[in-house]
């Protein structure tokens, strides 16, 4: 199988929910493929490293690159020598690659050939030559150190810096933002993340295939359903098991419920950030109603651990279906009222419109994805472009806006809630009867991939088993990797007090990419 008119032979991988192809490439082939993919308007999904030395003495390390092509997902593996592992710098083509490459450097010790090589996940709390994902790295503790991170400085008359974080002035996750400002206007924002890095990928090693789903579901708690589904897809590909049809439909029900819950919360908080606490209270009330029904029907407010390899752990009866359907009607009515109020509220619109703007052109250049990408005209939605079951039958409509401002990101959320409510009703009507779970047995030395459109964007999981059938390597990729750098652009020329609003309108995960 060949793609993009290049003579690189890909092997189709069986048992994947989305058509998936893999190839082993050299430096030149990787460069050629990246350039062709970029020229064709396709995108880099994820980039991660692995240690292959304990497989065979002749092997060193490997860096893997997953691309989204029209035909499906392609994974290119670049083997690297053990002594001087260096790989091509893809950041000039795909800016989102920059931080992923820095993370590979921290975790595995393979370096990008050029570009930014400052540490990313490592904060001077362990030495630069301690690479946690190498198999021969012992689990050690090192004395804490204060990191002198070389931020890019903006020089000039009247320019000063505002340093914020890691602990922020609200109930949010930790990160550091360094603003260079002139008066009220932001000239530059540089993010320093990685504060929540807790060694998840190392933790995966040697877990049983069935156990990993709990950890995957806790990479970013607000997207637990999407992570658990992506992980389960990968595990099912390894075990050669296909979940029963009913399980697929119930998974989609849970995923859409997660999407609605998060969108409701965000719309409230965006109102709050422009001093419309009415909006916060109303939307938080709706969100609470929503998650309470989750707890009543499925036993967990955020639906953690409800998707498992092989299927789902919860079923729904007629009475439950009726409760969900009634709730959809109620929420839709309320949403119409609240959207009317948001639309008509001059003070709110004044703060939303043109704030934190990313034009479609810039968004394409930055490789933005997911919800924030769609608000800037980027038509990426796996449910539409690579629909796995049951989305191939649900045929969701993609929500796209082109203004790329806070208002556009609010509109995409409104549109997506409406569409999700529609999908949920359709799922309730059309879910086939049958089993909800099948057995998944691990197989030795196999790879599997999972790829799911969560509420924030596409979540990707690459899973690999070792000779004993236990997890050898599991890489979890959050869409925030691609969109965090875009936030640095969104704030330029906006005033400092608008940053919380712009940040909230993106609502990116810190825990997800920090891993």
């Amino acid at each position, binding site marked *: 199988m060949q793609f993009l008119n290049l003579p690189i032979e890909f092997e189709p991988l069986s048992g994947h929910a989305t058509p998936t192809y893999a190839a082993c490439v050299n430096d030149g082939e990787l460069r050629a493929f990246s350039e062709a993919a970029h020229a064709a308007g396709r995108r880099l999904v994820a980039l991660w490293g692995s240690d292959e030395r304990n497989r065979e003495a002749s092997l060193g390390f490997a860096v893997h690159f997953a691309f989204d092509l029209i035909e499906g997902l392609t994974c290119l593996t670049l083997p690297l020598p053990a002594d001087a592992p260096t790989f091509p710098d893809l950041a000039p083509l795909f800016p989102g690659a920059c931080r992923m490459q820095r993370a590979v450097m921290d975790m595995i010790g393979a370096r990008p050939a050029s570009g930014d090589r400052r540490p990313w996940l490592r*904060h001077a*709390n*362990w030495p630069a030559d*301690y690479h*946690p994902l190498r198999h021969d790295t012992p*689990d*050690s*503790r*090192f004395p*804490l150190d*204060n990191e002198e991170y070389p931020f890019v400085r903006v020089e000039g008359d009247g320019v000063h810096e505002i340093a914020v974080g*890691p*602990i922020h*002035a*609200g*109930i*949010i*996750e*930790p990160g550091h933002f360094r603003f260079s400002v002139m008066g009220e206007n932001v000239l530059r924002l540089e993010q320093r993340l*990685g*504060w*929540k*890095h*807790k*060694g*998840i990928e*190392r*933790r995966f090693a040697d877990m049983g295939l069935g156990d990993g789903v*709990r*950890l995957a579901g*806790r*990479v*970013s*708690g*607000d997207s*637990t359903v999407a992570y658990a589904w992506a992980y389960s897809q990968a595990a099912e590909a390894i075990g050669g098991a296909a979940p029963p049809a009913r399980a697929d439909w119930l998974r989609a029900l849970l995923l859409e419920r997660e999407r609605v819950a998060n969108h409701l*919360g965000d719309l409230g908080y965006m109102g709050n950030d422009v001093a419309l606490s*009415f909006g*916060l*209270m*109303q939307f*938080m*009330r709706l*969100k*609470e109603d929503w*998650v309470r029904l989750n*707890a009543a029907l499925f036993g967990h*407010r*955020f639906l*953690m651990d409800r998707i498992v390899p092989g299927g789902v752990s919860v079923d729904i009866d007629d009475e439950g279906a009726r409760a969900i359907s009634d709730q959809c009607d109620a929420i839709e009515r309320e949403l119409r*009222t*609240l959207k*009317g*109020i948001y639309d*008509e*509220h001059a003070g709110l619109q004044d703060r939303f419109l043109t704030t934190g703007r990313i034009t479609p052109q810039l968004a394409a250049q930055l490789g933005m994805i997911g919800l924030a990408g769609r608000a800037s005209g980027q038509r990426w939605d796996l449910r539409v472009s690579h629909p796995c079951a049951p989305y191939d039958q649900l045929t969701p409509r993609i929500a796209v806006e082109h203004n790329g401002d806070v208002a556009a990101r609010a509109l995409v959320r409104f549109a997506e809630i409406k569409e999700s409510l529609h999908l949920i009703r359709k799922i309730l009507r059309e879910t086939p009867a049958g089993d909800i779970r099948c057995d998944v047995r691990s197989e030795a030395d196999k790879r599997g991939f999972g790829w799911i459109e969560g509420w924030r964007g596409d979540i990707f999981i690459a899973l690999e088993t070792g000779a004993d059938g236990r997890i050898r390597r599991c890489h979890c990729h959050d869409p925030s990797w691609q969109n965090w750098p875009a936030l640095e652009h969104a704030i330029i020329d906006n005033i400092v007090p608008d940053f919380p609003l712009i940040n909230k309108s993106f609502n990116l*995960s*810190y*825990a997800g990419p*920090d891993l």
Partner: protein
Amino acid sequence: MFPMLRQILRTGIVSEPSPPADDALRAVRQRLSETMLKQLGRALVIRHVDAGSCNACELEIHALGNPYYNLEALGIKFAASPRHADMLLVTGPVARNMEVALKRAYDATPEPKLVVAVGDCGCTGGIFGEGYASCGRVSNVIPVDVSIPGCPPTPLQLMEGILAALVMEGTAGASPA
């Protein structure tokens, strides 16, 4: 304006009564003096610190502010600075990268201070455990008064725990420390 007022009227007051304090959640004997508690009454200021959670605990802490739980009606509010806080509400296993920040927030909180560890991770390290990048449970880094387990704990469990930190040990029948 009128659609907003109409919506507010139509919604009515949805706040629910708060749960009683759950004494079982106390990790250590209460360190607050009786005088202090009298002064504090039920007005409590909390500084939340996410030391490395998966962010699900944050979602539930956010929910405390919704009209159903209406935490502010109990005189409990969240502050932006630890210097204004009586209590630190800490989530997550403590990431090594957050260890210094958490200790600084603790040092910046005026005495007497309360620390509540939130979630299975805050109580035990949870699924993330201890390793090169994780210090595990919160009490491995700063002293903890009350631990609220759950993955994540529900808003009601959070309220029970927060109130448990406020209710003096003496009132539960035991002698004050």
